């Protein structure tokens, strides 16, 4: 693989992407068009995130990739291997040890620090897309700060269902200006969008990059009488006993028996190593043996 430049992309392309990232950081929540390249993995597999990671990685970085919160899901493995091969960077599964974390659909449970970068893979960057299919129109709506349509949608949800019927990719307003799609993270993760680390969002197929600088105000859209509520399964993790983490629900037998476990596998493992044991768990050492 030595035929390829560090982190696959050529330096000019990385420069172009960095300019888009810097512009994105300067205008939090604003979608910056960039000349997305065709990557050796398909659109929809995280090409936007991969290009952003390629542009920010340096040889000294330690890289972590999660998909659905887990390091061992197949596409996370594939992306991690890609950068091991093309950039030779150190990789880790530990959130605290990583300097760059690429994610799909989750924010790690562990709070990120100021020296960490979180890179999101984004399928549809436009929060207004399913209300207005035309890009020409939605760009105008952002420019004019014309977000009435979104509030009408949320209101219609309440009148029809008695609740805002959006469970993931829950729209947020960034620093009081742009309505932004936080990518398809569960709304449980939305409060974590205000963090110390830098958050970069890459949408390869749609050719957009956007960003949230550290400590930026990020407000989930709601109404005074229907306030935003981050929700999760009403259980504790069956492996580590955590009450505060987002849970995956597994079907474990033919009778439809359920088990709940942390979606963030590093968080779960770290807790189990520290001696926490859930209702169906066993101490970590015994499991590893």
């Amino acid at each position, binding site marked *: 693989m030595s035929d390829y430049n560090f982190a696959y992309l050529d330096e000019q392309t990385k420069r172009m992407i960095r300019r888009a990232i810097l512009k994105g950081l300067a205008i939090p929540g604003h979608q910056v068009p960039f000349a997305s390249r065709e990557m050796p993995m398909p659109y929809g597999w995280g090409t936007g995130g991969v290009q952003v990671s390629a542009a920010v990685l340096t040889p000294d970085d330690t890289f972590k990739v999660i998909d659905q919160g887990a390091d061992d899901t197949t596409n996370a493995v594939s992306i991690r291997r890609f950068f091991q091969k093309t950039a030779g960077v150190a990789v880790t599964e530990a959130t605290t040890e990583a300097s760059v974390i690429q994610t799909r659909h989750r924010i790690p449970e562990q709070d990120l620090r100021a020296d960490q970068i979180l890179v999101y893979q984004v399928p549809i960057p436009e929060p207004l897309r399913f209300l207005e299919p035309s*890009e020409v129109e939605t760009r105008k709506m952002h420019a004019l700060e014309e977000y009435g349509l979104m509030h009408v949608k949320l209101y219609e949800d309440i009148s029809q269902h008695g*609740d805002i019927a959006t469970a993931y*990719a829950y729209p947020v307003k960034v620093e009081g200006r742009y309505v932004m799609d936080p990518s*398809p993270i569960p709304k449980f993760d939305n409060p974590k969008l205000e963090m110390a680390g830098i958050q970069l969002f890459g949408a390869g197929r749609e050719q957009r990059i956007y960003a949230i600088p550290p400590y930026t105000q990020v407000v989930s859209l709601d109404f005074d009488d229907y306030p935003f509520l981050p929700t999760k399964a009403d259980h504790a993790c069956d492996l580590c006993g955590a009450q505060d983490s987002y849970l995956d629900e597994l079907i474990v037998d033919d009778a439809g028996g359920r088990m709940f476990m942390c979606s963030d596998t590093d968080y779960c493992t770290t807790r189990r190593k520290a001696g926490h044991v859930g209702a169906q768990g066993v101490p970590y050492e015994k499991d590893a043996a």
Partner: protein
Amino acid sequence: MYVAVKGGERAIDNAHAWLAEERRGDTSVPELSVAQIRAQMTLAVNRVMAEGSLYDPDLAALAIKQARGDLIEAIFLIRAYRTTLPRFGGSNPIDTEDMACDRRVSATFKDAPGGQVLGPTFDYTHRLLDFKLAADGDAGDVQVAEPQKTATPHIMSFLDREDLIQTEPAGKDVPDDLTRTPLELPASRALRLQSLTRGDEGFILGLAYSTQRGYARNHAFVAELRIGAVAVEMDIPELGFAIEIGEITVTECETVNQFQGSKTQPPQFTRGYGLVFGMTERKAISMALVDRALRWKELGEDCLGAPAQDEEFVLYHSDNIQATGFLEHIKLPHYVDFQSELELIRKLRREAQANIHQEAAE
């Protein structure tokens, strides 16, 4: 204890090994060579070059072999390779008038200077399975004609002289490059044509067909369809003149379309244009029809709300690499989002059922 989806690394390695075995197939059958694919699957090779936006028959043939004959997968391999290539510069525009035509037909004139040349076409074959090919594919002796030495003038140029066909405004000297700048709308015609020529053949065909059936009908005649080799020349600054750096085969289609005239313009024919790498006739004709449909605004026509007239709809959905990627990505894990939907729908159902019970009680 139940352990969820661990073992991603090993699963990937094993899947790749199995894939390689499946690609090779039954080992008692001789392996296909890249040269065989290049020489005998030429139309597949041409499609891969056209939609891969890279003129290299050897690489296209290799991609088809690697992709087990899945042409969209092969196009993807070529696109991914293409992005890694350095750019030395741009060639001069090719001159299709100087094309060495293998095929050249006009549907608008019975004959014209340069003549009608059928070339190697399926057009008048009877589509009967040729069982002889199952045993022996030898073509036998074929008559060879003297190549024409003179240029073949474009049929359109004859209409042009009479001012019957609308003249095209000059574009930028160096057109924008779809692969280097993010697409912004409205797009120039150059960008639209770039998008169409690398767009999915099936998608462009379907759109073109929809215009024929009345969704923004534009009454196209094929004024000329020509296929053949053209020289590619490039200015070399150190030399101060252009040199020929190679030869490519392209298919060019020019359509003549009716135009009623508007308040500002007398009736005049208009044109649609298709130009595609390789022998790719269906694609070039489709491209010309869709190009014409997209030109409604600049020609002062009404938008009829047809899909083929909607620039954003056409340009954002014609690329099969984008489309197939996004379509197929829904097979990747989505269980975190699905979990949040599960929680929500359970909650909404609980509330709805509580309301029903309460109403029943009242």
